[in-house]
């Protein structure tokens, strides 16, 4: 997409939005036990036997594992005997609309959607195959379907590994697992005072990647939305971002190398709270080689 086309589309990405605090004060564990029971885990009355460490709390019962991830308060529940497991024969035939319907129905039954607004986003399929050495592989079979429901807030969608509910179904169409990575939105810290200009965003992107637009990368698409990070990442605020889908290489890419595409995210509000992404080069001590051969 050339600069003028991008410029024409840029203003349409702006919308009334806020910067929200993430509510860390809510203790999810009691709710999580009830959620597990609704999901079929027959957890006896009394103090549940949680195990855990600094990353997560886990409750294991009847081949199910319920995990609460501390950094995000995300919840995941899986049937270890069936989630992402291949029985060797099944081949699921389910359309996307059927899968979305099932996901919304099950997520609603479990109370995963709470007061938030989620919309169908993507149906994924887990395919399996095998072969004996020297023989042709068997035809792939679909052994699991994972449906992503994306959160919406203020009319904006969510970007990132969080801000979603994922529902997994096995060959018989029943639920084999689910996760909710949707931090509880607290009070408004500030209304967005204005949206950053295209030039400002491109300059920040060039500086972060240490690349120049056109010669090193091109912008294939631009979107806006609220950013929510994954299960193991701390996040203090929910705020709007621009997501730039970039094609790397530009004129300098060798013919043999595959094109690399990345998505880069930058804060969208003039009064944003940054940074959003890790520093480009984290300081990781390296091991000297044992041999200089």
């Amino acid at each position: 997409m050339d600069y003028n086309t991008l410029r024409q589309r840029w203003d349409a990405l702006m919308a009334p939005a806020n910067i929200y605090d993430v509510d860390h004060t809510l203790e999810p564990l009691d709710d999580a036990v009830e959620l597990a029971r609704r999901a079929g885990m027959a957890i006896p009355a009394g103090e549940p036997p949680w195990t855990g460490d600094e990353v997560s709390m886990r409750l294991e019962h009847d081949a199910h594992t319920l995990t609460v991830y501390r950094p995000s308060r995300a919840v995941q529940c899986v049937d270890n005997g069936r989630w992402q497991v291949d029985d060797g024969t099944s081949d699921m035939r389910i359309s996307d609309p059927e899968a979305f319907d099932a996901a919304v129905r099950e997520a609603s039954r479990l109370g995963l959607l709470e007061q938030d607004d989620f919309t169908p986003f993507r149906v994924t399929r887990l395919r399996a195959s095998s072969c004996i050495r020297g023989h042709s592989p068997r035809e792939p079979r679909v052994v699991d379907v994972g449906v992503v429901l994306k959160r919406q807030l203020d009319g904006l969608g969510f970007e990132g590994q969080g801000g979603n509910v994922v529902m997994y179904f096995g060959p018989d169409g029943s639920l084999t697992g689910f996760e909710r990575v949707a931090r509880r939105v607290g009070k408004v810290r500030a209304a967005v005072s204005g949206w950053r200009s295209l030039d400002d965003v491109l300059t920040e992107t060039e500086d972060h990647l240490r690349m120049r637009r056109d010669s090193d990368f091109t912008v294939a698409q631009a979107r806006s939305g609220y950013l929510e990070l994954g299960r193991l990442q701390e996040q203090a605020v929910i705020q709007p971002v621009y997501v730039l889908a970039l094609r790397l290489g530009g004129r300098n890419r060798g013919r043999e190398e595959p094109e690399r595409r990345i998505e880069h995210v930058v804060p969208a509000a003039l009064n944003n709270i940054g940074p959003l992404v890790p520093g480009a080069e984290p300081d990781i001590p390296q091991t000297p080689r044992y041999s200089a051969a």
Partner: protein
Amino acid sequence: MSVTYGVHWNSAAPAPETSCSFVSIPVIASVASGVVSAMQSMGHTKRFVRANENAWASDYEHPEVASTGQSLTEDGIDSVALMYYAGHGLPEVSASLASNHFGCRAFYSNMRLGVRELRWLVLDLCGGVAGPDVSASVNMVWSDPTNGDSARPLEALHVLCTFVDESFAGFDTGRGGEFATFVSHGAPVGSAWLDAAFARSGAQTNMPIAIACGSDEAEARFRLDNGRLADGAAGPVPSRSMAWKWRS
């Protein structure tokens, strides 16, 4: 269950005078950083953590196939139980490194994986397997590397994790740390990779794939679904069959 591990990453420009011409992606270092941090906090034993000019193609290649290969040495990938590489790849051909030690490409055809210590290999790169015929690609690319060597014919690593076609780097840098955390908590290795590496948002969709070896298809399938870090002490496994699954 503590295991030995190694981490390589390539976030820099290619070394001069090599055949590689990939674009440097600094954010790849954040993926590797997540692996290192999680493996350390989970009590695993670090053997090496190396980047860019310090990670060599010869570390991946087996000496019986490539005379310069040193996969069996202390610096080689077959000296650790779990190896994680984050960087570039030439589809169905090689991992591409930002170093020049007998070239920049670690050719898959020159690897013989898991004949010593290696049990699980993550190639977080583009084109470890290529579509659209994923199964044909798995069979073509990964049969030889799981073929064993003269000391251990038809024996190999337990599970290989990689991507079909492009692996999208970007602001989702958490997959390495999630994978390391999940397997440390006892999740099956293949399942942990599929869970950590599939993209929940964006127009660009990662297609993670896990490939397991076994004496027959049923055993490979069982290992793919159930193989955990705790199983690594059993040593190399028979590789007369492979089973794989991928999310798309």
